């Protein structure tokens, strides 16, 4: 239960949206994995000093998206990852990002091999920071 979102006030992003985004990011990067427990609505609201309804709204959205699982009387847990998209759809969603990355990288003078190596290196660093940074 050491994961805690950080919120910013005065932002154009509503507080509930900041919580949703940070939980999704932590799951995508492996900082939160299936079965990890999140604080209760009330506990998180009191730690972040925000209205409990805001946390409830964030959790409701994460529940609906299948990211978390709220078990009555037990708590809030990261759900088993589910893959709602077909293989073709997954490709279709990734391709625009790949195009943008390639365009930028080739413009900056990187070769395809260098790009591939940079991607691998970046992924290794993310994995390392996840295993060492869990207590933060």
């Amino acid at each position, binding site marked *: 239960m050491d994961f805690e979102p950080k919120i910013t*006030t005065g932002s154009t*992003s509503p*507080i509930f949206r900041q919580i949703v985004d940070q939980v999704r990011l932590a799951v995508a990067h492996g900082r939160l994995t299936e079965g990890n427990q999140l604080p209760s609505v009330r506990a998180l*609201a009191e730690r972040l000093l925000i*209205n409990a309804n805001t946390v409830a709204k964030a959790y409701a959205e994460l529940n609906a998206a299948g990211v978390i699982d709220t078990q009555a009387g037990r708590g809030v847990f990261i759900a088993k990852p589910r893959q709602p998209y077909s293989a073709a759809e997954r490709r279709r969603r990734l391709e625009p990002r790949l195009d943008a990355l390639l365009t930028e990288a080739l413009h900056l003078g990187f070769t395809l091999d260098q790009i591939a190596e940079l991607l691998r290196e970046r992924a290794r660093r993310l994995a390392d920071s996840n295993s060492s940074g869990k207590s933060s």
Partner: protein
Amino acid sequence: MTDAFAIQTFELTKYYASTCALEQVSMAVPQGKVTALLGRNGSGKSTLISLLLGLIEPTRGSARVLGEDSGRLSPRTRGRIGFVGEGHPLPGFMRVRDLRGFQASFQPRWDDSLFATLIEHFGLLERSKASSLSRGQKAGLAMALAMAPRPELLIMDDPALGLDPVARRTLLEAMILNTRDAGNTIFFSSHELTDVERVADQIAILDRSVLRVCCSLEMLRARVRRFEVHVALPREVDLASIPGLLQARRLPERIEITALKHPGTLNRLSTLSGGAEVEELPASLEDIAVGYLTESKNRVSLLAATAAEVTQ
């Protein structure tokens, strides 16, 4: 109580002689939620709160508070309402422990351990005289006296006014503590938008005696947009013709506009700017509040007006 509203007002109007302090305010404050009342100084916030508590009589219209007419609240209903007045007025000659004993004697639901915890967190001593307290301590004592009776409805008139950051944080904690009971309602006025963003479910905005907004923070954010036009428009271009305009800031190289989300806004901006790039962005609570509270004559900002003189 049959309705799910802690407070309802019906065309509530108050005149002081011929001066209008509140003009036909109709609003509903949902039970179990935190509602923040925003508005500039002199916009009628304190008048509205005084009317809700039955401290003054409306000129026209009415208000229901916890299901009763605000002008005829029964002692029992009064006991269910906690109130923190503007500037935290307290009888200066009394000591903290006297005020505690006095309040506890006629509050049936008085929670003495809550009172003790609150005064400790605001750095108060039992023997302190109310007149010797700092602003933060006064706020703490006023909060403790209002919260210890476990009110279902807590009404506060600008409780954060003049508090240092530490006292303000403790005040925020006390408000969140009050919401632990999910049925409790808070209605408070404030200028501290970061605190409002943290605790409020609902936002009401009073602008020169008129209620402009009363809805959820989420709905308010969905309703208002910021537009950036990347071109310096000639001064004769009339920004007031933009549908739903709340505020426009002219800068030397662009114009920033806060406006209601309206299908015509983007079109109108494109036309005005001769097809220049127009960006639509979400607005922060501060953008929204400033947008609603800016008087029409100031809609082109002071700095931009000055910059325009320089460039000519």
